[in-house]
């Protein structure tokens, strides 16, 4: 295969994203506060173009002939197509979600759009990195906008705290990643994933312990970003403090990027390091699904509950990495798609409840169905999806994942997973109990009805719910093509 070529065309969506971000940043300087809305027009139009270029290879069903760009610095293979699809559509959805919210302070529109787009770009770069150094760059481009976005509401004390905490702890993670890369470089004399893959285990016998430690450090850094168990501590605080309209995006883009990277890393390192890599994953998996679900049980605050549950979901996703095959990876992709949409939707509803009733705790959901039936129904769909109960799409994502795990002889781990998911069911249906079965508090029902914040938010919520329901009835539409692409991906990665 031709690795040396630039193949710039393969990276077209990323390049377009970058150009779009720059255009927004520059135009923002030259237009008055009244005309800030035109920035939205630019970014929606731009994103549609990007989405089109990202979907094109997916629609054409053509296998990719040259799966790299910039001489192997970035992969542009079948996995990339799906990651682009998920991240860019998540970005698109969350921009629609936050349209009305950002427009309340139009001065910040430009910087907001810039940060969101750059953040998505960083996620794509991280997940498609062909070289460990590019991975570092991707991680930084992903993280720095996230730190800022976490504290985007400057007047909110919790937001500032979240931002600062995220920044400090995130820097540690980056340091881990760099140290890991240094060790890997020491062992393999290369940072290129292709070259690491090509080097035989026998050639590095002496350096094998170093390579193992290095890979564990890299996984730790990724585990931090993905919010896996021993590195989870920032998640609840940061999610709690971040603005409701984008915290879903923050959760999903980081997860998609991290699990995309883990898929690549595992394919490269499994053959060389093998067993010990698996042990680390197994440990992370068990700790994450059990503790994540257990800790979510005690939360009284919905945002914290969703934060802990996002930890648990990251845990289930590890099962797909462990299963390590086309079934596992396509299950991860399906899961990520569904999860991204659902988590955005549920955080938005939580934010709306705060808007109408003034708080995030469970008791603020009391009798929601009476006041806001549509919101309650949407929240029900999201909660059942997260809990993995049919007929919603969340069931399929769990089924595909557990099926992959069982097929790869990990049935003990699947049993642990399903038992942990029972805990999950408990805290998700607690929300339902509040919404449908508890009476609405007196104060709320007499309160003046506040206006619904925005038409666009509503549209996006419905769209997300419809996607979840449709994929719940016809999961094959997406899953089947994911399996086809993934089986090709596994056979060719990383050598093409």
């Amino acid at each position, binding site marked *: 295969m031709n690795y040396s070529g630039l193949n710039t065309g393969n990276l077209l969506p990323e390049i377009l994203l970058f150009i779009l971000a720059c255009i927004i940043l520059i135009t923002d300087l030259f237009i008055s506060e009244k005309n800030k809305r035109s920035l939205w027009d630019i970014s929606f139009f731009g994103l549609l173009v990007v989405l089109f270029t990202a979907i094109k290879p997916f629609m054409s069903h053509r296998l990719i002939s040259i799966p790299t760009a910039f001489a192997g610095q970035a992969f542009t293979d079948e996995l990339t197509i799906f990651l682009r699809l998920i991240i860019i559509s998540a970005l698109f959805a969350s921009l629609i979600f936050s349209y009305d919210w950002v427009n309340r302070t139009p001065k910040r529109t430009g910087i907001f759009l810039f940060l969101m787009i750059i953040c998505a770009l960083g996620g794509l770069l991280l997940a498609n990195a062909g070289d460990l150094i590019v991975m570092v760059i991707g991680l930084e481009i992903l993280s720095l906008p996230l730190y800022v976005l976490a504290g985007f509401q400057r007047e909110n004390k919790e937001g500032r705290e979240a931002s600062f905490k995220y920044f400090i702890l995130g820097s540690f993670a980056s340091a881990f990643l760099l140290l890991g890369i240094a060790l890997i470089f020491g062992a393999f004399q290369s940072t290129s994933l292709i070259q690491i893959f090509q080097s035989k285990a026998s050639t590095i016998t002496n350096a094998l312990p170093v390579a193992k430690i290095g890979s564990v450090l890299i996984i730790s850094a990724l585990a931090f970003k993905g919010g896996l168990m021993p590195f989870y501590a920032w998640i609840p605080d940061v999610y709690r403090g971040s603005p409701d309209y984008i915290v879903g995006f923050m959760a999903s883009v980081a997860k998609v990027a991290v699990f995309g990277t883990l898929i690549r890393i595992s394919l490269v390192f499994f053959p060389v390091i093998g067993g010990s890599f698996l042990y680390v994953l197994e440990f992370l998996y068990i700790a994450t699904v059990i503790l994540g679900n257990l800790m979510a049980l005690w939360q009284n605050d919905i945002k914290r509950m969703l934060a802990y549950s996002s930890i648990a979901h990251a845990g289930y996703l590890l099962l797909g990495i462990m299963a390590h095959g086309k079934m596992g990876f396509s299950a991860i992709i399906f899961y990520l798609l569904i999860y991204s949409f659902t988590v955005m939707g549920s955080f938005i509803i939580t934010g709306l409840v705060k808007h109408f009733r003034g708080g995030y705790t469970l008791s603020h959901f009391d009798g929601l169905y009476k006041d806001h039936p549509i919101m309650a129904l949407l929240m029900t769909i999201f909660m*059942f999806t997260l809990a993995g*109960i*049919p*007929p919603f799409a969340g*069931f399929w994502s769990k*089924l*595909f994942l*557990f*099926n992959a795990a*069982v*097929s790869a*002889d990990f*049935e003990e781990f*699947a*049993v642990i997973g*399903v*038992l942990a*998911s*029972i805990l999950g*069911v*408990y805290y998700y*249906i*607690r929300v*339902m*109990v509040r919404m*449908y*079965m*508890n009476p609405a508090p007196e104060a709320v029902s007499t309160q003046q009805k506040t206006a619904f914040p925005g038409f666009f938010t509503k549209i996006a919520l419905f769209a997300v719910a419809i996607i979840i329901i449709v994929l719940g009835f016809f*999961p*094959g539409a997406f*899953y*089947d093509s994911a*399996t*086809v692409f993934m089986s090709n991906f596994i056979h060719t990665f990383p050598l093409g």
Partner: protein
Amino acid sequence: MLAWITFIPLIGAATIFLISCENRRAIETWGMFFSGLTLFLSLLLLIGFDVNNPGMQLQINRLWIPNLGINFRMGIDGISLWMVLLTAFLTPIAVYFSAGSIKKDLREFLALLLFLETGMIGVFVSLDLVLFYIFWEVMLIPMYFLIGVWGAERRIYSAVKFFLFTMFGSVLMLIAILVLYREAGIQSFDIEVLKTAAQSLTPRMAVVLFWFFFLAFAIKVPVFPFHTWLPDAHTDAPTAGSVILAGVLLKMGTYGFLRFSLPMFPHQCYDFALLISSLAVIGIIYAAWVATMQPDMKRLIAYSSVSHLGFSVLGIFSFTLEGMTGGLLHMVNHGLSTGALFLIVGMLYDRTHTKLIERFGGITRIMPFFSVCFLLVMLSSIGLPGLNGFVGEFLVLVGSAKAAHELTFPGASYILTVCAATGVIWGAVYMLWMFQRVMLGPVKHKENENLQDLNKREKWCLIPIIVLCVVIGIFPKLLIKPMEAPLKELVRIVQQANQPVSRVDQITGLEHQMHEFGTQRGDQ
């Protein structure tokens, strides 16, 4: 056809949800229309049904997720036929009754009830295990809301308990299904494929998977140590919810034994039959005793359900044609008579807002028509000859007396049968005693004196059930005929898997040894 029967209620649920919630009349009409249509279509099933065919009929098979081999496959045989009919029969009654008795949010209630019907019928007709599992889980959602929103005092506790208990059992079943899928090797979740796959498992794995399946079904039935969710769920559920819960939901467990456990794990079923039958008998007697002492009528009937379903399980795990036929028939009978009992308690509750036995007494004088219905239903539940309950229980006891595990443990089946037969007596004890305290004697409480007798709606809820009880009691053959072919097939499968091959082997082995012995002596 089957797909229509399954999904028409769902369409109905969606339609009802679009009606404005003030328009109770329209909500009721549409609810009755859709549930009636389902009943009509499922009665049409009887016409084309071939009684002598032990296999699946009226099959549908469509690709759904080709890459994993998940198909949309449905079909019915003599076992599921009656379950579908029972569901389709009880739902309109539940809809009709609740249109009168549910005051709050009728629209949501009926929509959930129809949604529930889709789930229940789907469970009985699906032949692909993923499809089955989906319906099995889907049905939890509406039931959870029915209990949690329209229930009595401790509704939230009961609803959550119901949800978590059943969920716990079913997720393990999911893992078992996935393991079978892996072992099958060819990509298919079809029941026939997984059946074959189950035969090639290692013995240890087979035992584990058997228990995973068993747990899911046993919690649903519920078999004795797993029954604790049931009294709570029943006590707090609204009347229509109780009717469906007792009438259909519990049968899913016993249906699961017949459809999945037995054909997939005939060997393991056989090995553990004694244990399971003992649990069933313990359940029969224990639940009957507990029921006797209940102060609350609904709780009493709930415990009686545990006791009654013990008979079904006992019959199924006797592996005799009589026992299984009795078990299946008893499932239908229990659905009818316990459903009617819950309706009756619901009618009393609507009038007096209490279910406590001590708050009643001498109701016969005040509500004569009601008491005739109550008497008939109660007698059918006790198992009076001539009414439906008797046939099922009798067949179960006959079957269990000559149960297959007699071979492994001589005498065990007689002891079990005798104990189970005492359960019939205990059943009479708690039912008659309750009837006596509620209906007979002088009117104890003044406020009960001006209770109204049944109105037209309530009468029309009870009459069809009572007619069926009598018809089945007199002509049980009508129901038994279609059951026979598939049940014979099941008995054959179990017996074939557990042929007293061992004995034949022993004999031939012995002959062989003697022969060798002879030749050796000859050599000398």
